[in-house]
């Protein structure tokens, strides 16, 4: 049966336009533009506040503030858009790093270390994904549990010891340069931004991620395999945490069980600051990229002013709440006035 012939009603229907507003018009009102403006303002403020800011090498060093976290943030953005969350990512880093250190004791070379790091991340993601999608548990609690479990295993293995003595070749990930001031990590960050941007915005898979985040029931009722998509997202997040573990371990040159402590909050902050709705269903990779740059610059700029890291966290926390609260406050004030 040719489906095209099903509904010939005879009357001539009206033609529906594809879009009314152009994409450019919409972009002008976007969150990303606001972030860009904030980023530029901070850049200018930083360069006025400190003479050391506008140095290519200093800026290059500053990228380490966000590259590793942003790798995870890309995958986390997809996961949060789909309506789930993974708070165990820092725990995965600890476990992956520990696994690599363990492999090192048995003489593993760089390729094996990389495989162990990524494989551990993938395995952790698989455990999270199985608990959430197969057993139907809420991801926020499951991953609070696995966060303690993963890091806890690191503590069991290492106690107050540390693994060190990684091979020279392994240093390339966290300490290497691709060209001039461009670090290997920055190159990985840029490549991943592109890959995740395409995955989320230009593929069927990305479309399904948005659909699930907007309405998981209607998605399932439309034939979307919700559990499978979510499983893949947990695996991706685990994999990215494994990759971040490789970079971080390579940069630090050692593994301690306290590695990357508290990163899960910074990664989530980065994602939310990037305009991804914590309730799921909306957000973009461009937003996350800009949020990573903004957070990196704030941290770096305050660092140049000798502001301690813990005080910077006040700024990051205020940023997280402020960017969500201010538009809502304005809306609330308008409603009160009306």
């Amino acid at each position, binding site marked *: *049966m040719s*489906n*095209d*012939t*099903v*509904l*010939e*009603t005879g*009357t001539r*229907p*009206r*033609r*529906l*336009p*594809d*879009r*009314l*507003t152009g994409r450019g018009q919409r972009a002008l009102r976007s969150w990303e533009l606001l972030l860009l403006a904030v980023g530029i303002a901070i850049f200018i403020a930083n360069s006025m506040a400190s003479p050391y800011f506008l140095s290519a090498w200093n800026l290059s060093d500053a990228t380490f503030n966000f590259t590793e976290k942003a790798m995870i943030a890309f995958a986390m953005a997809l996961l949060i858009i789909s309506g789930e969350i993974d708070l165990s990512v820092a725990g995965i880093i600890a476990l992956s790093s520990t696994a690599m250190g363990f492999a090192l004791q048995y003489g593993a070379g760089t390729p094996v270390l990389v495989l162990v790091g990524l494989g551990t991340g993938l395995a952790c993601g698989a455990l999270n994904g199985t608990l959430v999608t197969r057993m139907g548990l809420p991801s926020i609690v499951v991953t609070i549990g696995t966060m303690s479990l993963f890091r806890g295993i690191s503590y069991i293995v290492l106690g107050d010891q540390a693994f060190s003595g990684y091979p020279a070749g392994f240093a390339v990930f966290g300490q290497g340069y691709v060209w001039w001031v461009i670090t290997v990590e920055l190159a990985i960050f840029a490549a991943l931004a592109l890959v995740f941007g395409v995955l989320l915005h*230009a*593929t*069927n*898979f*990305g*479309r*399904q991620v*948005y*659909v699930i985040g*907007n*309405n998981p*029931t*209607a*998605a*399932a*009722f*439309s*034939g*979307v*395999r919700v559990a499978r998509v979510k499983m893949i997202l947990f695996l991706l997040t685990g994999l990215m945490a494994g990759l971040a573990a490789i970079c971080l371990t390579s940069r630090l040159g050692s593994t301690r069980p306290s590695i990357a402590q508290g990163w899960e909050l910074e990664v989530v902050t980065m994602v939310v600051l990037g305009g991804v709705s914590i309730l799921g*269903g*909306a957000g973009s990779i461009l937003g996350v990229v800009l949020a990573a740059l903004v957070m990196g610059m704030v941290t770096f700029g305050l660092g140049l002013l000798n502001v301690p890291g813990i005080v910077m966290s006040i700024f990051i926390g205020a940023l997280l709440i402020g960017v969500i609260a201010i538009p809502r406050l304005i809306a609330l004030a308008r409603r009160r006035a009306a």
Partner: protein
Amino acid sequence: MLHHGPMTAPPPEAGADAAPVLELRGITKTFPGVRALGDVELALHPGQVTALIGENGAGKSTLVKILTGIYQPDAGEIRLDGAPTRFPTALSATRAGVTAIHQETVLFDELTMAENVFLGHAPRSRLGLIDWPRMRREAAAILERIGARLDPDTPLRDLGIASKHLVAIARALSVEARVVVMDEPTAALSQAEIEELYELVDRLKAEGKAILFISHKFDEIFRIADRYTVFRDGEMVDAGLIADVTEAQLVEKMVGRAVDTIFPKRRAEIGAPVLTVAGYCHPTEFEDIRFTLRRGEILGFYGLVGAGRSEFMQALFGVTRPSKGAIRIDDEVAVIRSPAEAVAKGIVYVPEDRGRQGAITALPIFQNVTLPSLSRTSRRGFLRLAEEFALARQYTERLDLRAASLDQPVGNLSGGNQQKVVIAKWLATAPKVIILDEPTKGIDVGSKAAVHEFMSELAAQGLSVIMVSSEIPEILGMSDRVIVMREGRIAAEFEREGLTPEDLVRAAAGYGETA
């Protein structure tokens, strides 16, 4: 019912002529895309039962929500004892003595029965603390009074739908009320429980309460009501004394139009069996559902709310799994374990709960339409927007969708146009069987006709249609064959010829059968 003094109960004989306790005048309520109530009138008299009659979507539930302070009317006034008043919150309506048994149980699964009855107005000790022993005693007394011999300490989640309904009734009776609204209170009750409820209604009448009784069952309307008010498409069409009308007259007023002129099911060639369902069972929701659906046929499923029709359809669509039973599609055994498998095998489902299960309201029209067809519009997993727009346009224009553009969020459309988007989504997958669950619920009259028009078209082109509907004219007008479900089982099966509204009503409610 707890503290009523001697003064609140006028002698029942006074009821017939007493001034109304509560009056609605010119009430209008509009939602985006649909006018739920237009300029309606209603008067409730002390010591009398007023039956509110109307099809689904006639505006009855909206009226209940206005009466109980959940919705605010756009225009019109509420008069209490002749004086204009307002119910800005649920609490203010309760304080004014208006209490309701809602159709959807608005209760708390994790709390006990006693607490569900008294939440928000629990008895307090002298220190202002909740007096649990008294709450239990009084809850038990109220439950006993409506014939529910249930332990007030049972958590609500351990109860079935019928017992939950009794708790909702008990809750409405736990406050000192002058007006009691009952929205289909017997829908989920057994015959014995219904008898106890009738006795209760009689007692409430004797105490001088004004009762608004919403029901689809005409036998019970004639059993307990004194007056009637009929709503149709959000307007009040008639009101009067029950003693002055017959059942047939009420049905006619409710339906309001000659059935087969409005619902134009075309004569379609009915062909070979497409779908055969044999002995589908579910542990708690339905049992032994069997039928055969043929090419070009529209099979109607009629029943009261909660008869298990949607539950069965969702099992057929793979949302839930049946515990027993088998299906054949085009004479081949098929196993459906998920909606994705159902779609792949040519069975699609347009759900009743459009906002939650059907449309993804925040996303644009074209993305809704292409969702199950993405593998066709994309290349190697990459989206091709031009193909998506083309496919979306093809089907939405044929359904005469009214929208500003294909990029508009579905949530901005009217109910009827949202429904068209959901149907377009499925037609784009070239299905064999389309299941439509209450396809015109909450849709304006114009869109209804359009939906019926293309249902006919689909059948004429050889598609098989299953239509779940609680609207008698829709069932009578559209179906080639009708299956009536009651309490999770098939109660009757009718051919189109010679089928009357009374047949359907009787089979669905389970009375008038000697067997």
